């Protein structure tokens, strides 16, 4: 026999003499990294990753023959180093994004490209489902987020960034109002209970994802209602309480219990919870207002920003001053100022020590506040608050910006002799927040926050996890939501007794640094759709929501502005998988990389040579199998080009897409229609037989979440076609979900087709055929079957003609 034995790592395997070491390994389920191996092609060795050590010598496994008795090592230190070096070389010339920049910028990693694509397809429920994979509160976040995603949106290079957040809000509201809104599937109960302290975004998020895993979360909340800063820190004109309540309901309905008016240190202790629950999550936020340090008297005339907002949230009666000074430049300061205006303050001044540019508050919020009447007093700092039973004046000093400090912002320095006074009767200080760790001995770190291991989200106490502002310090809500979710993953692993490994905070992604408009797909300029808002006069004296939300038409129009920057193969790319496996850092030196123009004008094939690893598979499959040589390797420029460097359409290219099937990355992909590139969910794969010519190629239908065939693939080596497909087989599938498909029976009445029920149509046909058969005999009826239909259907059809009608008048057009 031609069979031999060899040892790969610790395994002894049998192989065929004609096999290479790589083939023998793969056949036996042994993983050797490789990118250019394709059973349809002769070994090329181009990727250089399948290095193995054979009897002490390092060789490429795809070129080494399997020989009796050899010993192969697949992962020695030297080999790992060389593979890493090779991968780094590849990424040093890979000017591309794996993941869209908007998604990389999101603290929760929510992929806006994915849900915008779903919105564009009108799949609102799917979009909500997708968002909720990383964010259980899209209606809330869609209203209040600071939108780091939009700051990174590439559309900005064409005209303006896509209104990602407005779209998120649109689809969250849409789904919420739907009779068939998305509800996650909850796994069977595990019997494990998790105590969560704090019903803010971190705690709610942790509870949501733990509940989905079948655990029982119980939230302890100090305030009378859940929501944390979302309820007590964000004014209702930005986030109506009803929206918050409804979205919290979508969490509690999964079996999450919330116990309100339960304060840590007063009503229970951490020890109690540790004793009674299988795990504890601390999501207490950073709710303690930092004091200004210039208060002099006992009048209580200076209120902290968050206390002020909380009092409003609690519905307390507020005695608002006539002339209010708000100190600070962040979102809380702006929220406080705008709330003060709504409560009837005649004049509200915001005092900030740096310039407008340095204000951490969201630009649009500052602009809107100014429109509502807020006055900014910039480059000024309060030095003293004067009181006379109550606040009367505030003393300030002018500032000037000096050298940058450790935060990167310029340090403000007082200008001697520039003091000035301001008449006020109320001062609100919103200069920062801190974690109240008074009841949390043992978990606080030196920076006044709860310390956790970022890989496990666990504190120094086993079984006690934390996330959100309590860990990061005061930051945006979406970050707290991300923290809660990551902690939930860790807690789930902990409860299952697994090693806790929640992976890196940011997934691996190559980054396309230095993109300008010339490198982008051609797009006509199209302005961002403005958010409809309440007029200024409608806003005063009320906390009614200012932003009214997109209409469906507006949302669809805005969604179509997305440039779909993320790679459509990001979750199937062998190169990216290896980058993750070998812990490769993305190369950020866009300058030194080669920049290729993306060829996206071919009707079927999209070529992005920035993603090419020069394995040569495309050139070889076009030459060895298709034998048309439409592609070539350009030695001088070390690049894959079309033959003659012309447009692919002018070469001998048959548009079969064999090159696409052989490409290990996304340098060659099908040029799919916009917003049909469903890369983000694993497709349902159904193996079937091609419906075109008589060869009967085996192929895989890739079905998207809407049940549509969105791609056809094949398994290399499989079927009569060995994984090869032609242009029709690979790309001729969009007819399946074409809008012109017949959907109901049609009956012609008065020369025009009218939709009919099956009953009506079948009854009409049966009656007519019966009458004709009675009057003219069975041979007055004929039937044409089809070579497109199945054996079973052709069989039934001829049986129908012969046994039911009684005639042999049956034929089909494709007799050979």
């Amino acid at each position: 026999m031609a069979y031999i034995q060899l040892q790969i790592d610790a395994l002894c395997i049998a192989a065929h003499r004609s096999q290479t070491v790589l083939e023998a390994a793969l056949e036996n389920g042994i993983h050797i990294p490789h990118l250019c191996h394709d059973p349809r092609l002769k070994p090329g060795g181009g990727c250089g990753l399948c290095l193995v050590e054979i009897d002490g010598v390092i060789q490429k496994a795809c070129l080494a023959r399997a020989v009796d008795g050899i010993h192969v090592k697949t992962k020695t230190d030297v080999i790992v180093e060389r593979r890493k070096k090779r991968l780094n070389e590849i990424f040093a010339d890979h000017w591309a994004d794996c993941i869209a920049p908007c998604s990389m910028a999101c603290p929760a990693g929510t992929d806006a490209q994915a849900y915008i694509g779903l919105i564009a397809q009108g799949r609102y429920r799917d979009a909500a489902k997708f968002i909720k994979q990383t964010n259980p509160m899209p209606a809330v976040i869609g209203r209040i987020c600071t939108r780091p995603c939009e700051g990174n949106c590439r559309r900005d290079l064409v005209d303006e960034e896509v209104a990602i957040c407005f779209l998120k809000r649109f689809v969250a509201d849409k789904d919420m109002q739907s009779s068939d809104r998305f509800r996650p599937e909850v796994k069977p109960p595990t019997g494990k209970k998790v105590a969560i302290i704090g019903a803010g975004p971190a705690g709610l998020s942790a509870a949501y994802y733990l509940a989905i895993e079948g655990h029982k979360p119980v939230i302890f909340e100090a305030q009378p209602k859940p929501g944390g800063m979302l309820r007590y820190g964000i004014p209702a004109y930005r986030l109506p309480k009803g929206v918050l309540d409804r979205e919290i309901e979508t969490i509690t309905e999964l079996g999450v219990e919330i116990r309100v008016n339960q304060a840590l240190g007063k009503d229970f202790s951490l020890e109690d919870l540790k004793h009674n629950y299988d795990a504890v999550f601390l999501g207490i936020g950073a709710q303690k207002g930092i004091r200004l340090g210039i208060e002099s008297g006992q009048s209580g005339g200076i209120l902290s920003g968050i206390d002020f907002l909380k009092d409003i949230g609690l519905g307390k009666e507020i005695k608002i001053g006539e002339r209010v000074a708000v100190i600070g430049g962040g979102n809380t300061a702006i929220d406080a100022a705008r709330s003060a205006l709504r409560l009837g303050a005649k004049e509200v001044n915001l005092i900030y020590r740096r310039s407008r540019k340095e204000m951490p508050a969201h630009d649009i919020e500052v602009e809107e506040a100014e429109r509502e009447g807020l006055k900014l007093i910039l480059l000024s700092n309060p030095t003293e608050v004067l009181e006379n039973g109550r606040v009367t004046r505030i003393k300030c000093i002018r500032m000037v910006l000096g050298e940058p400090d450790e935060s990167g912002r310029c340090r403000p320095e007082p200008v001697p002799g520039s003091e000035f006074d301001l008449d006020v009767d109320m001062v609100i200080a919103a200069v920062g927040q801190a974690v109240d760790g008074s009841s949390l001995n043992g978990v606080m770190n030196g920076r006044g926050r709860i310390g956790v291991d970022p890989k496990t989200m666990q504190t120094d106490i086993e079984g006690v996890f934390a996330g959100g502002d309590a860990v990061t310090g005061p930051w945006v809500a979406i970050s707290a939501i991300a923290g809660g979710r990551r902690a939930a993953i860790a807690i789930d692993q902990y409860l299952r007794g697994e090693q806790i490994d929640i992976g890196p905070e940011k997934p691996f992604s190559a980054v396309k640094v230095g993109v300008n408009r010339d490198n982008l797909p051609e797009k006509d300029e199209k302005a961002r759709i403005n958010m409809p808002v309440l007029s200024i006069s409608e806003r005063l004296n009320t906390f009614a929501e200012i932003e009214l939300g997109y209409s469906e038409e507006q949302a669809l129009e805005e969604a179509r502005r997305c440039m779909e920057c993320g790679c459509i193969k990001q979750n199937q790319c062998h190169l990216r998988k290896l980058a993750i496996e070998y812990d490769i850092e993305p190369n950020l030196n866009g300058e030194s990389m080669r920049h290729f123009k993306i060829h996206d004008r071919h009707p079927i094939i999209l070529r992005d040579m920035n993603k090419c690893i020069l394995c040569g598979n495309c050139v070889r499959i076009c030459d060895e199998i298709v034998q048309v040589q439409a592609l070539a390797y350009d030695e001088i420029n070390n690049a894959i080009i079309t033959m003659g460097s012309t447009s692919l359409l002018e070469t001998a290219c048959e548009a079969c897409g064999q090159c696409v099937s052989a490409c290990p990355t996304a340098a060659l992909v099908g040029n799919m229609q916009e917003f049909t590139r469903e890369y983000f969910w694993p497709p349902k794969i159904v193996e079937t037989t091609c419906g075109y010519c008589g060869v009967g190629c085996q192929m895989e239908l890739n079905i998207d979440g809407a049940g549509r065939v969105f791609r056809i693939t094949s398994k290399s080596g499989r079927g009569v076609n060995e994984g090869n497909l032609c242009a029709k087989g690979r790309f001729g599938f969009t007819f399946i979900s074409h809008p012109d498909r017949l959907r109901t029976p049609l009956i012609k009445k008065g020369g025009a087709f009218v939709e009919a029920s099956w009953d009506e149509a079948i009854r009409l046909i049966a009656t007519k055929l019966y009458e004709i058969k009675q009057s003219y005999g069975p041979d007055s009826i004929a039937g044409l079957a089809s070579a497109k239909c199945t054996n079973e259907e052709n069989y039934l059809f001829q049986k129908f003609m012969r046994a039911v009608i009684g005639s042999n008048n049956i034929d089909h057009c494709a007799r050979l």
Partner: protein
Amino acid sequence: MAGLAKAFGTGAMTISIDDIEDAKVILIIGSNTTEMHPIVGYHIMRAVTERGARLIVIDPRRTKLVDFADIWLSPKPGTDVAVLNAMMNVILEEDLLDESFIGQRTEGFEDLKAILPESTPEKVERITGVPAYDLRAAARLYAGEGRASIFYAMGITQHTSGTDNVLAIANLAMMTGNVGRRGAGVNPLRGQNNVQGACDMGALPDVLPGYRRVSDSEARAKFEKYWGAVLSLEQGLTITEITNEAIAGRIKALYIMGENSVVSDPDTNHIKEALEKIDFLVVQDIFLTETAKYADVVLPGASFAEKDGTFTNTERRVQRIRKATEPPGEAKADWEIICELALALRYPMKFTSPEEIMSEIRQLVPTYAGITYPRLDLHGGLQWPCPTEDHPGTRMLHTENFFRGRGLFTPTRYRPSAEEADLDYPLILTTGRNPWQYHTCTMTGKSEGLNELAPNNFIEINPVDAKKYGVAADGEIRVASRRGRITTKAVVTDRIRPGVVFMPFHYAESAANVLTNTAIDPIAKIPELKVCAVRLENV
């Protein structure tokens, strides 16, 4: 179909696609393989470039395979019998035949031998335009290397001499012993995914499932018993006959499942007349096709992605299709519709799945008896004959005996096409397909990328003819036959021989089948889509 069935006992590809590369010589006749069956084309090209096989291409068009060929014969369309007879003449003259194969495996050779002397290469050169030297070379190459395989497609069958063409191919293969051996065979390539299966299932007017003739009373009795119905012993009408009978008013009702006859059948105007004349027309399809527009009732069917079932490929391999998604709206799988209709006519056709239908097929068609869904899932397909559940399927036919026992030689003489070029219509039009559209564009025309690659019709004209008739490259040109005229774009190319023009038939807007002839082969009843006379007129 009819030709091979007569010669061998069954009309199917005798080898497997996997075996193609075992051939030492490959003869392609009437098949633009790399464009129409690209996967088979890959094997043929690889046989040539990697395995050193020799290649003969017989085609009026310079197809891509001509670039790989040792010999290219470019006969006038419709003269294939003459070409094949000339090759056999040379084989006989030069004693290149396989006498032991002829003696042990075949019958009727003397009849063939009797007619061959008249087909000398010199005489055939005058009929076909192929040089006698090339005919001799092709014959020597085909017969001289051992292990020769022939592949053919619609370029052979869509003629009034279609059956003769196939018989001549069978004669050539048998006289050189090139059937039933490794690397040797006679291989029709099916143009549509389930032509083989539709024929196997008896969707033909003369045979029941499994090719039992309707006149065979024993066969009829078996089916009558199983189906609980009395069956007609009269052979039914073929498509072309149905059309004619409809015009004559004798076909009153027509039920069409998944065919777009208005575009696919010859002489479009003739078909339209028939469809208008019919009292009651039912069309079941996935789109409102050109044909469906004539219907009284249109029923929405399911596409191949929306139902379960099996297709049988060109190498007799039965393979599964699987339901991947729901049909749109209220559309249903064709089998469900047929069952409902039968039930409405009080016939108990109660199947709940295609697998149940296959169980019935297995009872009635012996070659399918061993084919079950679980086995198909396990093996990825089974080639018939597969008579029992432990049978592995049949990779190659006729290895020891022909299906009919001995292979039968049937002498065939060249007959001119029904319509030849003349002074009024001086050019021969031959039709075919392009690689990006399929049949009548029902599917590919609705698949964006493909349709963009080949959105419009065109006509290929040799530069000599272009000059002669004053045709400008890429210009609009009117093409007229005795049946109609259409306007299309001229492509001037030496891919086509002088005196012949080529058009794909896919496009309803300027349908080539407005021009084609309904003349049919007397036995197979296939229309002569590959030859008709046309003239070019300036627009």
